[in-house]
């Protein structure tokens, strides 16, 4: 029985989880510092922030890498507490939910930039 369970794809999952968490270290520092700096900022200031090339790229990176890290993390929780067929269904729901949230984030960034 496979279907994305950790026993046959565990090493890849482990490596991707570590790689994304490593990349998220500077991105987390950046988002906290940025949100503190923009506390109480008006709409125009936030639009200026997100359309700035460096900050726009960092926000896109945070969304993509953060959500992928989130998919991997939730997958472990699902695999720990659920068995097939619920497990299989929830692993699909996990991906769909994350793809939806990611699509909204990227659409918003794209709409601001273009």
């Amino acid at each position: 029985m496979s279907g994305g369970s950790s026993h046959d794809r565990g090493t890849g999952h482990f490596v991707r989880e570590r790689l994304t968490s490593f990349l998220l270290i500077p991105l987390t520092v950046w988002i906290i510092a940025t949100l503190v700096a923009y506390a109480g900022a008006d709409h125009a200031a936030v639009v200026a922030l997100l359309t700035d090339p460096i900050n726009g790229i960092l926000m896109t990176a945070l969304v993509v890498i953060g959500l992928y890290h989130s998919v991997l993390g939730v997958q472990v929780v699902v695999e720990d507490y659920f068995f097939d067929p619920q497990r299989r269904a929830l692993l699909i729901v996990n991906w769909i939910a994350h793809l939806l949230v990611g699509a909204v984030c990227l659409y918003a960034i794209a709409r601001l930039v273009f």
Partner: protein
Amino acid sequence: MADKQTVNPALRPRPVSPHLQIYRWPVTMATSIVHRVTGVGLSLAAIILAWWLLSAALGPGTYDVFTDVAGHWFGQLVLFGITWALVYHFLNGIRHLMWDFGYGFAVPTAASNSIIVISLSVVVTIVVWILGYWVKGDLAL
């Protein structure tokens, strides 16, 4: 040896394995569980990030709705919780990465840096929010 046979083995006191009610929870168990809980919490918080970005993209009118909700005391409480979850998951995540490189595995080390991570996450979160209110102009430092 014969007299021992007179005691019913089923009535002898049996060895008791660690039981939830008497089990002393090591602090490393708390950090591990909280890491998972904050992780799932942050997955849900991604919805708020998406809402924030979409509100900004849709224009000032929509953005005002977001800032009104975020600025309400309950919104601030939720955002404070998310900040702490992020700071905690960040700090404990670094602890996990250090384990992966072979550092901090000894039980006393793992226990003491558990306490450091928990304390530091609270301190950093409070400092972040004090700075935020200061930037916002609601607080004179």
